[in-house]
């Protein structure tokens, strides 16, 4: 059987033919759309390396059937930076050395973006630790990750504040 689904991936509308309903969103991205930034660490929702945003929410792309996501907006690590300008979370991960081998990093960053949008951590490092616990980093870059999320959250809040003032003016 072959299915045709519509996705908006990193802002770009795409029609994707799926010849096998078993294809997960993760394998669709990696093996069929040549978007390999999203990583496979466990393929079972146990590590977070495959985290992407679907309709703005962070999820494990390994546990989603692509066919099931017809019509969804998907944001991956490739869609975060604007040209050469890194997203605040990406920049903060570099500044705080929030990674070593880099393999879990796309998932960590997408998870952090999702976390900040969810708005439940505020500036509490303990809440960030808890809410980033779905992303395993075997190298052990957690301290830098927490620092990076704290900083990025502040940067984004400041940006939003500036934009808000500008709009109000």
């Amino acid at each position, binding site marked *: 059987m072959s299915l045709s689904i519509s996705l908006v991936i990193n802002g770009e509308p795409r029609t994707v033919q799926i010849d*096998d309903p*078993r*294809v997960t969103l993760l*394998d669709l991205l*990696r*093996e069929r759309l*040549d*978007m*390999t*930034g*999203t*990583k*496979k*660490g*466990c*393929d*079972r929702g*146990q*590590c977070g*390396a495959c985290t992407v945003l679907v309709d703005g929410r962070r999820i494990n792309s390994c546990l989603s059937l692509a066919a099931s996501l017809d019509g969804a907006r998907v944001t*991956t*690590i*490739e869609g*975060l*930076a604007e040209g050469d300008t*890194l997203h605040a979370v*990406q*920049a903060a*991960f*570099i*500044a*705080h*050395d929030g*990674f*070593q*081998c*880099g*393999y*879990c990093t*796309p998932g960590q*960053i997408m998870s952090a973006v999702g976390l900040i949008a969810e708005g439940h951590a505020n500036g509490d*490092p*303990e809440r*960030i*630790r*808890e809410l*980033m*616990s*779905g*992303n*395993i*980093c*075997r*190298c*052990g*870059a*957690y*301290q*830098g990750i927490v*620092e990076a999320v704290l900083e990025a959250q502040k940067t984004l809040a400041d940006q939003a504040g500036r934009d808000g003032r500008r709009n109000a003016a």
Partner: protein
Amino acid sequence: MPPEASSPISAPTVRHGSNAGQPLTRRDGVLKVTGRATYAADNHPQGMLYAVFAGSRIARGRVTSLDVAAAKAHPGVVEVLTPANRPPLAHDPDKKMPPFGFRVDVLQDDRVRYVNQPIALVVAETLEAATEGAALLDPQYTVERARTDLSNGERFAANGVGVGAPPRTAHGDIEAGFAAAARITEAEYETPAQYHNAMEPHAVVAEWDGDRVTLDMPNQALSLSAASYAAYFGIPAENVLIRSPFLGGGFGSKAMLNGPQILAILAARMLKRPVKLALTRAQMYGPVGHRGATWQTLRVGTDDGGRLTALHHRSISATSSFDDFLEPAANASLPLYASPAILVEHEGLRLDTGTPGPMRAPGEASGSAALEVALDEAAEACGMDPLDFRLANYAQTEPGTGRPFSSKALRDCYAQGAARFGWAGRPLEPRRMRDKDGFLVGWGMGTAVFPCPHFPAEARATLRADGTALVETSGVDMGQGAWTALAQIAAEALGLDPDKVEFHSGVSSLPSGGIAGGSGHTASAGLALHNAGQNAIAELGALAMADPASPLFGTGNIGVTARDGRLYLRDDDSRSDSYADILSRAGRAELAATAKAARDPAVAAAHAMFSHGAVFAEVKVDPDLGQIRVSRLVGAFAAGRIINPRLVRSQYFGGMIWGISFALQEVAATDRRTGRIMNADLAEYHVPVNADVPPMEAILVPEDDPYVNPLGVKGVGEIGITGTVGAIANAVWHATGVRARRFPIRIEDILNGGASFRAA
């Protein structure tokens, strides 16, 4: 200590001068945060097929049938490799591959020696088809009883431990030492099988072109592996190109050849199409190594002053039924504490498991875990503070041999770590501290130590007429920061800003960068780069000094220094010449120099070379429920010259987190009847998550080492685990009064203050 310690270097980098010693951010940072860093399984050559191996579900026996027809009937399945049709290999996989290779399982016969051993390889047009094809094989077996632990494994006298270390070392008269002791403490310690579980599962994309093959695979030892693969496939070593620009973690597991990767390469040759194989997470538990279990006994004799009179450390180390890597755990007792008599001994234990191998601090981690708890028990018996006890037994020279240490700033580590942690005033007795919420609080410490190996390495440095340079070595960045630190070393040797230095690495065709292992990569590959850079500068100097148009003309005997892309006459900054000008005038587009580097054997023989450290841990334990949380960790480490403090701190943090993991979480839960690991995943095989990791501090204690190598660089990648495991276990004792001697320490060990809930 402030609860949320901020690293002083986390502010935007201010660069003073340049190069080595500066906390530069990672050169590969942008690639890694944008998803553009390519790992092996990200490659997708035209026409690529997918391979998935079927792993045995028994630990010992034979495969009697495979439903190959069912697999082949699945749409998209192209081929099924089994012992019946597997093409020949040029090297016998049941023979070890020198120098370090293990025996591997590549469908040579129907024997099964461990769970998850490859018993077939399915190749298909899609990943989905290959996966299901492997599931359809429905293997049947004749099963023999698996040997899974000390009770039923086969014990044997060890010929060697680790990578070529002797199984037994004796210094002094051990019995005389115990006879002279005022007190003897003795206890047994167990460490379980642990699995590396790098976030990136092992993978390979193999593409043949005639008798040449390109392998995209994560690999910690590029040159060595290229030669080994060539031997397996009967082709010249230069016909194997391994590309490993990034590894998604290695921790030792990506230094050795393994069966699944060889089979995928073989399938690509057989089918004349590129083939990709990526292990599933479950398949990481078996064919790609692990940290073998140990059963250790420590006997510690002390005199009235709390000084060691004898230290006896024995380890029974588990290995597979068909190879012999033994965790050199007891050797952890050799270099650290002064004792007139030290005896370390190892015995082997054969189990029906995949062959263990080096896993981050092999031997040191397991051995230090036991040793540091044993020292704590001895200190307790002597009524001494654990830090005072270690200071009383401080080794001024290497115990047993009396060799001087090439450098040893361990006293500074103890002092700085203790001060930062606030160790002073710690009550000697356990169960004396509580926090405001009623949690039991405990403080523990341990000494960290790790040797400084040096691997032969080569490098090439090319100065270009545009004032930039290219440096090349087949180095490996598995997260430790080689791209950055090695480039810093090269830039310093070349007198260039790092931004002007192009760094090529991660490909086997480059000059050999040696092995990324043993915490020796920065020193080994770094020294080769340093030497190549110096050679290039020397040649450039010779060009300038022979050039009448150069301000340096005719200054040959005085010499030059290299700085910011210019050569300066030594002690006279008024006479200088730029690299670009020297090369342009000589009509040269570039100037290349190579170098090899190895350790001077005479210096090595005359000195004991180790990194040292001290780790202080605080834990909180729920007094009723037994759940443990590490609440603070402070490590102070002395590892010679620090090339990049930002990256080094991250290495220490990573090692200390592995210490948390070892102490409290990691264990492969093996079914005693079948040998199957019942938690072969990342949900139930626990490694720390973010919430497990407390605010940490790593203090970089200055240390100048004139002997270890000309750079003065020691290793930092593995030492963080050592010391930390013991510090946490000792802190748990201090909080609860329970001496846990089996790792990981679990809730049931703590409940009711002891071992009453332990299963036999």
